[in-house]
């Protein structure tokens, strides 16, 4: 590519290459985890929350939906492994990547195992592509040699070397999460909530979301509710603040835009807060993080489970306690809203509205 060298920004290095690849993997994994999670949640709504433990005893539509949901959910880790490898090494990465994802389940290395396996496959395929072979044989490289040898090599490495520390780490993490109680539980949720509400879709938010989605893929549904509920408080809170602050503190454009934030909040699309965050970074950030942290902490402490990683108000019914979820959502939004309405400086005299139209709606 005739790439233009950027003057000020750092060049694309290995770290950026990996980050982009992991993000690509996640972008392909999200529909899988959302679809699978929501289907299982529907099954739980129809057949009772403990349906997963009674699967052999029942024979109903709920059970069939549960099976379909589980089938899709089973592809979560293979999807991330395969598409990380795909992003790094293109098409030949997919087949070995799928294998690494599936073997992660066998080895109990879960999401982290899939991530590491995908990266490993990516590098192996890149290396394999560099091997010089006679022209006559070059056709069989991507369809025979790479799928066979790279899968074998990566599989052996995962099985005998990398899988062992990762599986130990997962056990440690599982132990840590199940042993959390009281204050530490609240703190854990509060950290998730604060990170989610720190930059609304930026790197801090993505890091927290990645961690929580990874836990969700491994069957821990409580942090997911902390993440989603906290994320939903921010747009609603800012909308509330414009309502409380009124004309003295917010321009007409802002108050108009805040109406769309109510809808965005219900959809768990935090990005609508960004225009506000850019204009008034410190105060918006402080208010949103406070509301988000309290909501996240409460979700975690109450053990509120959300099998769906995304969906906002549309998946509330599928959480283990919908009313509680709505309560925490409203509470966090009120805290953020009241706080920001107080913190916000009044508009200067004769303020003229600048263009702040939302490209979202």
């Amino acid at each position, binding site marked *: 590519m*005739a790439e*233009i060298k*950027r003057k000020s920004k750092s060049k694309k290095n290995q770290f950026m290459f990996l980050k982009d690849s992991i*993000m690509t993997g996640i*972008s392909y994994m999200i*529909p899988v985890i959302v679809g699978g999670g929501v289907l299982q949640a529907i099954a739980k709504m129809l057949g009772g929350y403990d349906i997963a433990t009674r699967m052999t005893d029942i024979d109903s539509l709920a059970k069939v939906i549960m099976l379909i949901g589980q089938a899709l959910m089973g592809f979560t880790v293979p999807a991330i492994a395969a598409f990380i490898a795909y992003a790094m090494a293109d098409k030949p990465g997919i087949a070995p990547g799928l294998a690494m994802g599936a073997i992660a389940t066998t080895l109990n290395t879960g999401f982290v195992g899939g991530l590491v396996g995908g990266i490993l496959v990516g590098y192996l395929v890149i290396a394999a592509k560099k091997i010089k072979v006679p022209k006559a044989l070059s056709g069989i490289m991507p369809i025979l040699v790479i799928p066979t040898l790279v899968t074998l090599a990566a599989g052996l490495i995962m099985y005998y070397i990398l899988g062992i520390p990762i599986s130990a780490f997962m056990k440690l993490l599982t132990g840590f999460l199940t042993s959390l109680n009281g204050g530490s539980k609240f703190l854990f949720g509060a950290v998730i909530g604060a990170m989610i509400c720190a930059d609304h*879709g930026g790197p801090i938010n*993505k890091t927290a979301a990645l961690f929580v989605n990874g836990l969700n893929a491994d069957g821990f549904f409580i942090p997911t509710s902390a993440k989603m509920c906290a994320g939903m408080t921010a747009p609603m809170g800012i909308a509330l603040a414009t309502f409380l602050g009124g004309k003295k503190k917010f321009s007409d454009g802002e108050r108009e835009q805040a109406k769309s934030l109510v809808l965005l909040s219900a959809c768990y699309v935090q990005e609508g807060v960004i225009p506000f965050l850019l204009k008034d970074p410190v105060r918006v950030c402080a208010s949103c993080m406070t509301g988000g942290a309290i909501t996240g902490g409460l979700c975690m402490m109450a053990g509120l489970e959300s099998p769906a990683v995304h969906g906002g108000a549309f998946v509330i019914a599928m959480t283990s306690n919908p009313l509680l979820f709505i309560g925490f959502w409203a509470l966090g939004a009120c805290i953020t809203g009241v706080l920001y309405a107080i913190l916000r400086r009044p508009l200067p005299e004769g303020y003229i509205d600048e263009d702040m139209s939302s490209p*979202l709606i």
Partner: protein
Amino acid sequence: MYIVCVTSCPVGIAHTYMAAANLEKAAKAKGLEVKVETQGAQGVENEITKEDIKRADGCIIASDIRIKNSGRFEPIPTLNVSVSEAVKDAKSIVEELLEAIE
């Protein structure tokens, strides 16, 4: 002058489209002809064709992930930026591209 852009983000429901809207606005403000392809959760929308690339003077790729078919931009000067840069400050990205291709 004609520029083409591609925007994409991991989830593909918000940043992709915010970046696209901002780039389009910034380019039009400079009096440029512009076409923005989005690679969001919907897949590829408003696809940049071979004819577009033949005609284009420059390309901006605003993405945090690997975009589809990046090879097609081989013949034209291409500026790679992160999607959040385009959300926050599309104007200076367009300026940077113009400066580089002039």
